[in-house]
């Protein structure tokens, strides 16, 4: 019941209600008898029509009308078949019944569909349908059934997109607070843009006009949401890159990496795109090592979905280094071969050809691995990498080699001009209205215009929004975190401040590398992984993260500190299953097991989403504890890892039983919560 006031029922009401109920039930019984016995007489149809007028939601009753219609058409006499008015009268009767039902409830799915069904039989007048629509769309300008029906009629009767666009203009001019009209406008414009219809190509001029049109709505009442999403859509139409692009890689183009001589010289190659792509195979991406082509390379998406798509893709290359006594350098070239086969999820080809090369030096390991000492992420154990160290050089080289298209200010002139003019308009708005949409839109525009110049202003805007609109605090906080990370990772002035070196430098490779310390930054979200593909050790402790989605792209990661965050389930650790080099993990003092709702349940690999199958070995493994979901999730995530050090204390879901389960699951574990295992 929608919008019906609650009131106490009097005996008189009850009596009246019971009488009506009896009448409806007797109509229903009569109708169902007719239906079950295929009786389609005039009387039977009248009973049905009466019933539908009272209850247009009764699907079976509409089905019956369709059967009756077919029956009556097929049993026409020869004279009736010859008489076109006869068919028309049958159709008119159906349309009349629908109209009555819609007057009772114009949100009835069954009634609208019946009309579609009847009109599809032909013999209906466009004018009549448009007249009906105008009536309903005037009564309720947001009725989405009517809008759907309008699109159907426009298609059926070949009404032009331009014509329909004008209709949305009229509706919006009537009352700009009509989200349905704005929506339909975006649908029509998308079609017109695709067709490159006259007046809509090139799109600069039309975009400028649309910005102005929606501005009128937003500025008239900034609290009305109708224009908000349309404006964002326009901005997206203005800045979007129409195809997938490879934005960074590991190793980066032009770099030189050193690998120790071992039985096998293997390292990961990662391709990172601006969006999810499909079709990375040994046919679409060619690899040459010293001019020898490498065949049969298996690329896998770093993503849980089963239809083979991902934003990051990895393969593990093995250098054919046979002489274990000599050092040698190899030149590796990677290029897209048939890039049309590499497509975005919506099927757009990566039409830009790309290639990159790097060098791999295979040499004797200067620091042979001499066992493993526990790593402690404490401030006193780290020192800054300093300016003189070759680490800065190394960092700088990786950094400069990693290009990212989104850092370029809006490239072409007209885009930049349109955005600059919008920025000016929204700054103006904020001088007289302290509204959230003004601030939010300005933040978006500034990021689209030239992110690095405006980053401080954007951070300020998000801070203000957190105060101005507390119910959506976390939304602004997340945006703030992403912008902050952009600031940290985007220039060589800022990044070294977050790069540290482990002081107790033993011989181990883990401690040799740079540790990116993004701890205690109040981050509620992380991103910018395309800039972090080089990272081997990262400290994200003491933030407010509840998700580490995207971290799977950091294929070199060996040590990860996530202690004191808000991770609330083992499913939140799902990205770890892709990090095959991970040795050290700290997830202590999170909220694992404290919540009854798991927000990562459908973003992880699980049998519920058909992304992994249930492993019957688990039951044997967990003996008796198999019913505990925690155990399954941990089994599923940790089962494929080879951890040496794990800290997991301080989570509600972790008790003694669970710990002994983990020890069994991770046979290579040497340190658990600070205790050395034997």
């Amino acid at each position, binding site marked *: *019941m929608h*919008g019906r*006031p*609650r009131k106490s029922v009097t005996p008189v009401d009850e009596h009246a209600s*019971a009488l009506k*109920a009896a009448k409806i*039930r007797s109509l229903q019984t009569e109708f*169902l008898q007719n239906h079950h016995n295929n009786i389609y007489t005039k009387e039977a149809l009248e009973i049905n029509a009466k019933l539908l007028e*009272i*209850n247009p*939601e*009764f*699907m*079976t009753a509409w089905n019956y009308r369709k059967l009756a219609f077919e029956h009556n058409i097929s049993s026409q006499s020869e004279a009736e078949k010859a008489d076109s008015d006869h068919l028309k009268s049958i159709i008119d009767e159906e349309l009349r019944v629908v109209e009555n039902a819609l007057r009772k409830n114009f949100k009835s*799915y069954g009634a609208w*569909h019946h009309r*579609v*069904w009847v009109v599809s039989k032909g013999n209906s007048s466009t004018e009549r349908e448009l007249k009906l629509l105008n009536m309903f769309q005037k009564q309720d300008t*947001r009725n*989405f059934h009517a*809008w*759907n029906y309008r699109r159907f009629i426009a298609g059926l009767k070949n009404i032009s997109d331009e014509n329909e666009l004008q209709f949305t203009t009229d509706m919006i001019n009537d009352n700009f*607070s009509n*989200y349905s009209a704005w*929506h*339909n406008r*975006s*649908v029509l414009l998308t079609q017109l843009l695709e067709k490159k219809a006259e007046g809509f190509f090139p799109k600069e001029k039309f975009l400028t006009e649309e910005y102005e049109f929606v501005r009128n709505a937003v500025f008239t009442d900034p609290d*009305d*949401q*109708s224009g*908000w*999403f349309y404006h964002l*859509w326009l901005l997206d139409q203005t800045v979007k890159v129409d195809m997938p692009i490879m934005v960074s890689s590991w190793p980066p183009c032009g770099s030189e990496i050193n690998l120790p001589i071992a039985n096998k010289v293997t390292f990961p190659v990662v391709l990172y795109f601006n969006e*999810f792509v499909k079709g990375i195979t040994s046919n679409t991406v060619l690899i040459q090592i010293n001019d020898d082509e490498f065949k049969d390379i298996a690329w896998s998406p770093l*993503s849980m*979905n*089963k*239809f083979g798509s991902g934003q990051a893709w990895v393969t593990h290359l093995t250098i054919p280094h046979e002489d274990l006594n000599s050092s040698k350098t190899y030149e590796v070239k990677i290029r897209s071969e048939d890039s049309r086969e590499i497509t975005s*999820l919506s099927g757009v080809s990566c039409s830009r050809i790309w290639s990159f090369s790097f060098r791999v030096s295979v040499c004797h390991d200067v620091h042979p691995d001499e066992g493993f000492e526990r790593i402690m992420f404490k401030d006193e154990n780290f020192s800054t990498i300093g300016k003189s160290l070759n680490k800065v050089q190394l960092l700088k080289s990786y950094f400069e080699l990693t290009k990212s298209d989104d850092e370029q200010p809006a490239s072409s002139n007209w885009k930049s001009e349109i955005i600059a003019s919008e920025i000016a308009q929204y700054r103006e708005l904020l001088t007289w209205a302290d509204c959230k949409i003004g601030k939010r839109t300005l933040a978006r525009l500034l990021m689209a215009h030239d992110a690095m110049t405006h980053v401080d202003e954007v951070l300020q805007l998000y801070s203000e929004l957190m105060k101005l609109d*507390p*119910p*959506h605090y*976390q*939304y602004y906080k*997340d945006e703030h975190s992403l912008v902050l990370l952009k600031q940290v990772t985007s220039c060589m002035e800022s990044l070294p401040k977050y790069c540290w070196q482990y002081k107790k430098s033993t011989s181990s490779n883990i401690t040799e590398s740079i540790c990116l310390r993004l701890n205690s930054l109040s981050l509620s979200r992380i991103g910018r992984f395309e800039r972090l593909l080089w990272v081997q050790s990262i400290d994200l402790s003491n933030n407010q993260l*509840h998700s580490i989605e995207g971290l799977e792209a950091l294929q070199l990661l060996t040590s990860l500190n996530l202690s004191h965050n808000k991770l609330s389930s083992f499913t939140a650790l799902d990205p770890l299953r892709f990090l095959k080099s991970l040795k050290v993990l700290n997830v202590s003092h999170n909220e694992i097991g404290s919540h*009854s*709702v798991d*927000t990562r*349940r*459908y*973003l992880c690999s*699980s*049998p519920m*989403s*058909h*992304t992994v199958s*249930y492993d019957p070995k688990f039951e044997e493994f967990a003996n008796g504890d198999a019913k505990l979901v925690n155990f*399954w999730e941990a089994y599923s995530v940790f089962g494929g890892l080879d951890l040496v050090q794990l800290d997991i204390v301080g989570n509600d879901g972790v008790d003694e039983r669970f710990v002994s389960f983990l020890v069994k699951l991770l046979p290579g574990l040497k340190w658990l919560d600070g205790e050395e295992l034997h």
Partner: protein
Amino acid sequence: MKELATEKHTKYILQIEKKTDNIESALTEHLRINGAYWGLTTLDILNNLKAVEQDAVVSWVLSCQHESGGFGGNTGHDPHLLYTLSAIQILTLFNKIQNLNIPKTSTYISNLQNKDGSFSGDQYGETDTRFSYLAICSLSLLKTLNKINVEKAVEFIVSCRNLDGGFGCTPGAESHAGQIFCCVGALAIVGCLHYVDKDLLGWWLCERQVKSGGLNGRPEKLPDVCYSWWVLSSLIMIDRVGWIDKERLVKFILECQDFENGGISDRPDDAVDVFHTYFGVAGLSLLEYTGLKAIDPAYALPVDVINRVFLE
């Protein structure tokens, strides 16, 4: 703050079946099986499912099945996906799926898939992303998803995505929270949430919260308790539920209770019904309200039931 009147709601649900001499009952005859699903799931979330005579319900549900394999909304009514999912959900809730002829039911559903990947609700051809969800959820619970072309089904759902990141019932149709639940739920069940622009959709969904704390289903519309389910479950599936003020939503739902006779309504002081009672209680469960069983945001059944289906 007001509290959840668990006992009153339990009583309210149990008496609906018995009171047949009123208009509401007569007008909802055609979706009695949906009503049963709403009522029974609510009782389970309230930890009171044992108050129901299981065997009687199960045999009545099975009596709604047609020769074709589909279920009607009531005995003698035509079959439709809308009712078939409810039937499967009820049988799953009672752990009685073995009483169902699974191949026959699955064939009914898979035959409704169209060439473009969409689903018709029944043989009369209405297509809608609601039906995509109904089919995918049903077949997943029956473990027969391999009977349909999942990739095509996903393709159709994605073709219904809009400028705001939301989804409509057919390509070009406006986003609506109920429809978004169906599309996000279907994509979640087949592991395809990467097709959703989670930040854009998350923003649209979190802006559904209005001053009273309640959620509406589209911009510039009134709040309604049913969106506590449609919006909230979608936000949870895409992991953006932190973007709304949960406490205020809890308060709004609790204010929609009828403290005298039990039940929950769309807005405070409106007439209650089983549909809104379910959505209110399920919403509170998604908000981690104390004492309630957790509900799964994609399958719309208690989490322990879903875990039993997939983890054993």
